[in-house]
C-alpha cells in the first residue's frame, strides 16, 4: 500500500469520525450557562406544543427569535418553576433573582437573535456575502452577555444559592451537554 493511500484512508476515516468528535464543555462554559437558561425559560413557559394524554406533556419547537419578555417577568408555568426551585434548592429570594435574570437573559439574547436574523434576512435578500466582522460581533456579544450575567448572578445570589445553582449548571446539566466542531468551508 502506498503512503498516499494511507493518508487518503486516514482522511476519510477522520472525516467520518474525528470531525464528529464530541466533548463535554468545560466548567464555567458560557454556552452551557446560556443553554441552562434557555432550558429554564422554555420549560417554565406555557406549552407551545401538544398535550398528549394521559400523563405526557410535550413542549417543543424552534426557538422563536421574536419572543418578547421583560426583566420582571415571572415564569408563566408557575408549577414548573416551583419544581425547579425545589430541585435547585433555592430560597424564595434567590428564586426571584433567578427569575429576574432568566427574563433579562431571554430579553437580551432574543434581541441579539432578532438583530442577527434581520441581518441575515438582509444578506439573503441582497445576495451579498455576510460581513465576517458583523457575524463575529454577534457571537462576541452573546458570550459577553453570558459572562456578565454569570458574574452578576453570583454576586446577587446568596452564597448558598449561588453554589447550588452553579453546581447544578456546571455539574449535572453540563454532564448532559455535548459540543462538537462542525467545521465546513465558506
Amino acid at each position, binding site marked *: 500500500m502506498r503512503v498516499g493511500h494511507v493518508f487518503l484512508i486516514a482522511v476519510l476515516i477522520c472525516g467520518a*469520525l474525528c470531525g464528529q468528535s464530541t466533548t463535554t464543555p468545560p466548567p464555567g462554559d458560557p454556552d452551557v450557562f446560556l443553554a441552562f437558561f434557555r432550558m429554564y425559560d422554555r420549560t417554565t413557559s406555557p406549552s407551545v406544543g401538544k398535550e398528549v394524554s394521559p400523563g405526557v406533556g410535550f413542549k417543543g419547537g424552534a426557538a422563536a427569535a421574536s419572543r418578547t419578555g421583560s426583566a420582571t417577568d415571572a415564569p408563566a408555568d408557575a408549577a414548573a418553576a416551583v419544581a425547579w426551585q425545589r430541585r435547585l434548592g433555592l430560597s424564595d429570594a434567590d428564586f426571584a433573582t433567578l427569575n429576574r435574570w432568566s427574563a433579562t437573559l431571554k430579553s437580551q439574547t432574543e434581541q441579539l437573535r432578532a438583530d442577527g436574523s434581520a441581518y441575515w434576512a438582509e444578506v439573503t435578500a441582497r445576495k451579498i456575502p455576510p460581513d465576517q466582522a458583523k457575524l463575529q460581533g454577534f457571537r462576541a456579544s452573546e458570550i459577553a452577555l453570558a459572562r456578565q450575567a454569570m458574574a452578576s448572578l453570583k454576586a446577587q445570589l446568596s452564597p448558598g444559592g449561588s453554589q447550588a445553582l452553579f453546581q447544578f449548571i456546571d455539574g449535572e446539566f453540563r454532564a448532559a451537554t455535548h459540543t462538537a*466542531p462542525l467545521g465546513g468551508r465558506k
Partner: protein
Amino acid sequence: MKLVCMTLLPLALQLVPAARGQGCIDKVLYANYTQRTGGNTVFSYAEEEITGPDALTYWLTLSTQFYQNTTQLYSNQAASSQGGGGVWTEYSITLQSTGPGTFTLNSLNQASSDYCGIQAPPYSDGWNGYATSGLAVQQPSVSSASPPMFLNGAASSGTQTAVSALTANPNGAPATSTITWRFLAGSSYGTVTCVEDSGCAQANYTATAPGSACGAYDVRIVASFDGFDSTALWIFNNAPQSVFHMWGGPWDSTNPWAPTAGWQTTYTYKVLDMCSQPINYVQVNETFGSSSEPYPGGTWCLPSTNQPGVPDTCGWAWGSWSNASQFDQYGQFVDYLFEINKSGKYPPVIASGQNWFDESASSNVVDTSQFFYAGSPTNGQGVNLNALVSMTHYLDHGKSVQ
C-alpha cells in the same frame, strides 16, 4: 481507531488544506437531559444550538423519541429556520398516569449550512449526533413498624398498640416532595395522621374498628409523593376477641381462704385474638351481670351491687388486670372466685386440697354472669370479649362456664 485519528489527523490536515475546519469554526452544542423534577414528574429535555459566528447560517433538526421501558410514549421532529435559533423538545411525564419504569430520551441532532458547505446527512459532509439520557423510577412504598390491634379507644394496652407507625419510603422521589396520606379502601376501619415534624414522611395509623374477619386486610393506605401514589400498604385490624380458659377443666384449684374463713377457686385465662391466637399481653377487666341468690336465708352478697374495684364487705370486687406483673410470659392471668366467712354466710371450712365440690341446687349460693373486656384497666371499658361466662358460687367452690 482513536489512536489512528490522533496520529494521522494533523498530518492529513497539513496535506489536505481544504479539509474540515477551514473557514467555519462553529460548534454544535446539544443537550439531552432527563431528571425527576418532583415526586410525580419526570422531565426530559433535548436541544440543539449552534455556537459560533456562523450560527445564523444553520438549519437544525432535532428528532426525539421518548420511551417508558421499551414502549415509545412519544416522538417529535423539530426543525429550526435559518437565521439563528435552536431547536428543542421537552417531555413532562406524570408518573401517577404512566406508572414507574425506566424513562429514556433518545435524540438525533442534525445541522446543515449552505454557507459553511455542510449538508445534512446522508450527504458526506453532513453532521449528526446522537444523545440519550434516562432515569429509572421506582414506585414509593409504605412500611409499618407493627400491625395494629383494635383496642376500642385506647392507644395501647399492655404490649399491644392500636397505633401503627408508618413510614413513607420515597424510593428515589426527591426529598422536597410533598407527602400526603390517604385511604384507597377501609377508611371506616381507622384513621391516619401524618407526623408533622417528619414532613409527613411518617404517619400514625390508628385502628378504630376490628377487621371484618381473621386475616381480612380491609384497609389499604398509600403515601403520595406530589401526587404519585406509593404501593398500597394492606392492613388487617386484629382485635382481642375472646378469653380462653387455659386448662380445659372448669377450674384449676380450690383452696382454703384463711383456713377457717372460706374458699378460693382459681381460674387461669388467656385473651385470644380474631384468629384465635393468644395475645401477649393486653389489659383485661371484668363486670358482672344480674345476679340471683338462690341459697336459703339470702345473706350472701351479690356482685352486681358492688362498685368497680372496691371490695364490699363480702369481698366482692370487679377485677382489673392492668399490670404486667399480673400476666405471665404467655399473657395468662388468674381470676379468683371466693367466698369468705362473714356475718350471715358461712362457707364451710375446707382443708387444703380437700373440696367437697357439691354442686347440688341446695349448695348454690350465688348465680351471676361475668363479662370480660380487653384493652382497658377500667371496668366495662375496652373490647367486649363476647364471653358470657356463667359463674356460680357453691358452698365450697366456685365455677365459671363459658
